[in-house]
Every structure is written in C-alpha cells, then in structure tokens.
C-alpha cells in the first residue's frame, strides 16, 4: 500500500521532468508537452492529498478534473498559436523566433 510520501515524490519528479523539458527544449510543441507534465504533477498531488489529508472530501478530486479540462483548453489555444506562428515565421523552434530581442 503506497503512502502519501510515494505520491508526493512521484509528483515532484514529474514536475521536475516537465520543468526540465520546458527549460531545455527548443521546439514550441515540446515545451507545451512539458507544461502538460507539470500540470499533471499537480493533479497527482491534488488527488493524493484528497485521499490522505482530507479523506471524505471531494474538493481535491473536483479540482483535478477542472485542471484537466483547462489543460485541454490550453493545449487547444497553444497549438493554434504555434500553428499561426509557424505560418508567418516558418519555424516552431523558439530560439529561431527572435524578431525582437528576448
């Protein structure tokens, strides 16, 4: 039976992996995937805390559902913007997108 600590370590690892992807990846789509990992790390935390820290309550699980929904919205808006940027800038690599200085 895994304890709360196991879930927290898993979630922290997921978060750090996502963070690593965002910081090191040059491809805009890969950066979006890293952000999805970070959001899912938060979801693991929410559900685990709901089970161990506030048993019987629903708030954490409901919030996890809301986060999943908004992550889907974010992917939709994000991919649309990456596509629009690709049409005019002809690249999705963020280090080549430098009309203005960062």
């Amino acid at each position: 039976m895994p304890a709360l600590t196991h879930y927290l370590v898993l979630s922290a690892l997921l978060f750090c992996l996502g963070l690593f992807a965002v910081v090191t990846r040059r491809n805009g789509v890969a950066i979006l995937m890293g952000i999805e990992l970070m959001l899912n790390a938060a979801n693991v935390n929410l559900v685990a805390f709901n089970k161990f820290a506030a048993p019987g309550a629903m708030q954490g699980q409901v919030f996890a559902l809301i986060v999943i929904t908004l992550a889907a919205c974010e992917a939709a808006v994000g991919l649309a913007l990456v596509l629009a940027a690709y049409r005019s800038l002809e690249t999705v690599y963020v280090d080549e997108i430098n009309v203005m200085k960062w």
Partner: protein
Amino acid sequence: MTWADLSLIAPELALAAAACAALLQDAWATGPALESRSRGPAAAWIALGGVCAALLLLGVRPAGAAQVGFAGMYVRDGITRVVDLAALAAAGLGVMLSPPYLERFRLPAGEYHALLLLSTAGAMLMGASRNLVLLFLGLEMLSFPLYVLAALARRSRRSQEAGLKYLLLGAFATAFFVYGVALVYGASGTADLSRLGRAPDVPLLHAGVAFLVIGLGFEAALVPFHAWAPDVYEGAPMPATAFMSVIAKVGAFAGLLRLFPQALPQLAPAWGQMLAAIAVATMILGNLAALAQSNVKRLLAYSGVAHAGYILIGIASGGPAGSSAVLYYLLVYVAMNLGAFGVLLLLERRGEEADRVEDLAGLLGRAPWAAVVLAACMVSLAGLPPTAGFIAKLYLFRAALQDHRVALALVGALTSVVSVYYYLRVASVALSAGAADAVAVRHSRFAGVGLALAAAGVLWLGIVPGAITALVQQAVQALR
C-alpha cells in the same frame, strides 16, 4: 446552482453574452468568406452595450453586506465591487479607443471585442474568488484571451512572436500556480480562502504560497517574472497592448489581495518581508530599464513593471490601509495608462504604428487636445500633483509608513523621482514645436470620447478624490 447564484454573477454573464453576440455578428457580417470582413463599428457598439449593462447590474445591487454563492466559492463584497469597476472601466475604455486602429490595420473587430470582454470577465472572477479553484479559473479566463489578443495581427511576424512567447511563458507560470494550489490544499486540507487563516504554519504551506506568488507575479509582471512584458507589449497590436497592460494588473492584484491581506494574515510577518523585497527589486529595475527606451510601447511596458512594484507596496503593507491603497491605485492606473495608450492609438506612421518617442513631435500643433491628454497622463504616471497618480502614490506610501516599512516608502519615492525624467521626456516631445512629417493623426469621435473620459478620470481622482476614497475604504472594512 440557483437563481440567487446566477443573479450574483449577472455582470459577468452580461459580458459573456455580449462576447457571444459580437462573435455571431462578426460571422453574420462575414458570410462564407474565410477572412473576417466585419470592420464597422457594430461589434464595438455590442461590446460597449455589454459593458454598460454590466455596470448597471453592478450599480443596482445594494452596497450592503457580502453575499456568498456557488457553495462558498464566489463572494460579492466591497472588494469585488471596486475590482469590477476597475475591470469594466478598462474594458469600456479599451473598446472606445480601438475602433480607428482596428479599421486602419484591418484587424477582426468581432474577435477582438469578444476576447476583450471574456478577459474582463476573468479578471472580475479573480476579484470575486473565495476559493483557490475559482481564483485559478479566473486566472485562466483572464490570460487565454490575452494570448490570442497578442497574436491577433495574423500577418505581423512580431505579433505572432509576441503571442507565442506570452502563451509559452504564461502557461509555464500557470503550471506553477496549479502546483501551488495543490500544496496549499495538502497543507491545510481546504482550498477555501476563508478557512486558510486557520491552516497550520507548516513548510508545505509556505512552499505552496511561494508557487502561488510565482503564478500571480507573472501575470502582474513583477521582477523576476517580468521578462515577457517588454517583448509582448512591443509585438502585440497596440489596442491589445493597451488593454492587457491594465487588465492583467487588475486581475493579478485582485488575486494577491484575496490571498495575502484577506486569507493569510497569519503569514504577514514572513511574507511581508518577502513581498517588500520583490516590490523594491521591481520598482528599481522597472524604472531604470524604462530610462533607456526609445520605443513608447517598450517604455510603457517597463513603466508597467515599475507600477506593479508600487502596487505591491500596498499588498506587502497589508491591513485596511494597504488594501484600500491597492484598490485606489488600480482604478487610477486604468485611467492614466489607457489615456496614454489612447493618444498613441490615434497616430500612424506610413502604415505602421507610430511607437517611437520622436513620432510624437509637434503633436500639440496638430491635435492639441490629444497632446494635452497625453501630457496629463504622463504627469499622472510620474506621480505629480494635481493628478490622480500623486494621490494614489500618497496612499500607498502612507500605508507603508503606517506598517513601519520606511525603506519601502523611501525606495518608492526615490524611484518616482527617477521616473519623472522619462515620463516628462515623452510629454515634452509631444508639447514641443516641429513635426514628424510621416506621422498622421486620425480623428475619431468614438476615441475622442474615450480619451475625454480617461482624462476626466485622471483629473477628477486627483483633485476631488473624496468619493472614490470613501468607496475603497468602505470596501476593505471587513479586514482588520
């Protein structure tokens, strides 16, 4: 969900309905063509109607005790009322100032107005949140439309770049915010802001609050989370820049207000120091970077960073004095920043935005009223009397002194002196003789009324601040 709940969010519903109507009108006018052709003022009138309806719905509700709805998630109290007022003022001025620009640069009017209204509703939700879940929802509803607004000019490479950068960094900051909510939930067993005050003082809570500050600090452009601001402000179409520069601050500081002085007063000793340090860094860096700018959009971006630092003084000081100063400053900031951007929106240099400082030369000769409004807004941004910016800064510094944060008030006053240089440089160029030949001034009655309203706000809040001061002080009565 009951009728009582729905009547509570009536202003937000009015905005959402107007956003749908603006989009449908756009589709109706465009017909089977692929590109939006709706460039008439119809969408602007629909949006303005939505804003006025929301203001009316806000006004008819009696200013009494706080009302709570949606199972304790949503609260409509004094703070909600002032935040709603600031957000609706930003939306109204944003709608009135942009039609000449949208027409000239052929931007899709329906989408612009729909996104603007939805973003406003998001900021209003942040101001009304009594639960971290609603705060998160409001943050997302505020920022998604802003990403798209930044990328609205589909043929402009700079606009596309701005949209993509804003989205990637914004989503990144949002992920931190969600993780912070999860940690706070784990530390306290609740996401209810009204019950966080009883949470045990464990390291997990502090870690969660730190993540929440990263998320909100990004939206408010606080140092060190401000890196996106200059590029996004410069690249985005100017009406979008003008609107996002104020609405993002209204939403983010409403969120910080709900979080720190209201929900977590027990963390004030530890987090007051932390926020004060961020405020000092933000004020110094924002003002020094603005000194070197020759592009007015970039200059106003760094000025926005600096003003975020000033407003954070009020959050760090906490208590009723700090909170009421924050609310007052938000109202003033909406009027003066949109007034300044509104004048720039009237100018055009050979089919491009006139966003260099020297493009303003000789404005007094060709559009005297616009030049005077610009000068008044610059004087107000610099914080000089008799404008609203002076009174607003006075309240903030007084709150800091009451909380025995002398260093904070001192840094604020000194950096304000630095800022006088770059604001008055813009004003003196606009009031000087000589003319930039290539720059044309467009006249529009719609934008003229908007500019007059912004200027009236800047002067009225500066000369007779009594009524609004009473409003914001009444709003924070519930705080100790």
